[in-house]
């Protein structure tokens, strides 16, 4: 792992009042790698994801991102327009609730095309062709392109959010419980889709999930969080097959019990 890192965080600490949401957290991500952040509800996973993505500023600590030209950018020190620029094309963010990301009053095609237009693409025919291509990638029928997301099922909404996010070919995507709240069968299909897209496109992903099975399926590496601290980190299979920390052991065994 001497390859240059895509994302690197050191000493992240963040308190919400008296609550230590993050305590001295380090994290590394390599290009094309899927890293899972697991832990029970309230352990600080979403907070860490938001701090890594520059959406919440930590009390202390540094997050650095390697730009395509090799320069290491300090995510929390860069000017707002530059950060917005990253979020618009080089990065993506997939929310648990797709309604928070999608524009529910805009057609599926418009939702997928927005990032292209935000990036400056001004050819309607090209934007529409690209939207069609991405709807096909996420297994949404071409004849739904002008439909409003309102009429889509939960699984379709999540697939539409993924198409909307990936259309600019981001190098790094943050995902917060992307399969949470979906039926088991719908979840399985979505997980397959995410796995194949991410692998084929070589996208690096930071994936937050409370579901150990999801982490095992998607992520090569895993970080286990408890009360704002990283208690164990390593290759997913190793950590889950042979957990060292008592909290990880508890997490794994509660899955086995379920």
């Amino acid at each position, binding site marked *: 792992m001497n390859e240059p890192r895509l994302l690197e965080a050191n000493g992240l600490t963040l308190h919400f009042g008296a609550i230590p949401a993050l305590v001295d957290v380090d994290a590394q991500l390599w290009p094309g790698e899927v890293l899972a952040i697991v832990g029970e509800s309230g352990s600080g996973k979403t907070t860490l994801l938001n701090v890594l993505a520059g959406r919440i500023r930590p009390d202390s600590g540094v997050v650095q991102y390697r730009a395509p030209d090799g320069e290491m950018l300090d995510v929390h020190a860069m000017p707002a327009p530059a950060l917005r620029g990253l979020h*618009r094309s080089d990065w993506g963010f997939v929310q648990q609730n797709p309604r928070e990301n999608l524009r529910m009053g805009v057609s599926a095609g*418009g939702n997928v095309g927005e990032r292209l237009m935000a990036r400056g693409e001004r050819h309607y025919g090209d934007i529409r062709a690209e939207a069609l291509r991405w709807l096909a990638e996420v297994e949404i029928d071409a004849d739904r392109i002008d439909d409003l997301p309102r009429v889509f099922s939960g699984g379709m909404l999540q697939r539409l959010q993924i198409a909307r996010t990936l259309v600019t070919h981001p190098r790094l995507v943050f995902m917060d419980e992307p399969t949470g709240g979906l039926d088991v069968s719908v979840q399985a299909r979505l997980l397959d889709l995410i796995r194949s897209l991410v692998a084929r496109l070589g996208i690096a992903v930071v994936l937050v999930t409370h579901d150990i099975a999801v982490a095992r399926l998607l992520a090569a590496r895993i970080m286990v969080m408890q009360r704002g601290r990283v208690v164990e980190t390593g290759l997913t299979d190793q950590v889950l097959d042979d957990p060292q920390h008592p909290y990880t052991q508890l997490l794994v065994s509660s899955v086995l019990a379920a």
Partner: protein
Amino acid sequence: MTSEIGGYNFAYLDEQTKRMIRRALLKAVAIPGHQVPFGSREMPLPYGWGTGGIQVTAAVLGADDVLKVIDQGADDTTNAVSIRRFFARTAGVATTTRTAEATVIQTRHRIPEQPLREDQILVYQVPMPEPMAKLEPSRAETRRMHGLSDYGLMHVKLYEDIARFGQISISYDYPVMVNGRYLMSPSPIPAFDNPKMHQMAALQLFGAGREKRIYAIPPYTDVRSLDFEDHPFRAIRAPHPCGLCGAEDSYLDEVVTDNAGGRLFVCSDTDHCAERRACGHVGDDGVAEAAE
């Protein structure tokens, strides 16, 4: 009449308020297309009657100015007449209906057909200054989008139009980019008028009273209507000549002429039409009218 307004300052507003508005105007001119907040005052007219435009006019008007006021292109509508009378009384300025004679033109819904000059100022009455208000209800968010020149959302609206109707269906208040930087609402003028804003010799000032915003386009500034490469902006007009003056390049109003459904297309810019007729231009219905 004069005694009624005896207590008022020149052009109704007090000097301090006018200075405050002028400061906002200077800032607006310095940042073309950018909405500048200002402390909009209560005016003796209800919102929707152009209180923003009136305050801007009051702040730029001098004793030697000649004022023209138009509403839907016409000088003789209630709104235009009352604003013109308001300034005739409170500022004692000369007024005119002729575009060429005016130094300040306050307008709602139109830009005069006759090209404006460097020594003229065009003041627009603006009901809603934020071009993305219907798409993004949060003021904080639209301010951020302007700050970062992040206008993908406005293009999404155009995309949706083409997907649904086969073309961009905005016929009024068609959004423009000013000086390649700020997205701006041109106020509810027809899209037909948009090209007139581009590189206009006159100073263009915009006042929104209820929303408390002022913005401006300095003379000779680039103003481009948003579009797509494969769906370029087109200024649409009804495919008829003016019935009265025969003009084939002016914006037309459709007028119902009788109970039998008779219709007439006439110039919406009444001064333009009158000037043309005075020069001997006659439309098909103009002849009939003269013969009656």
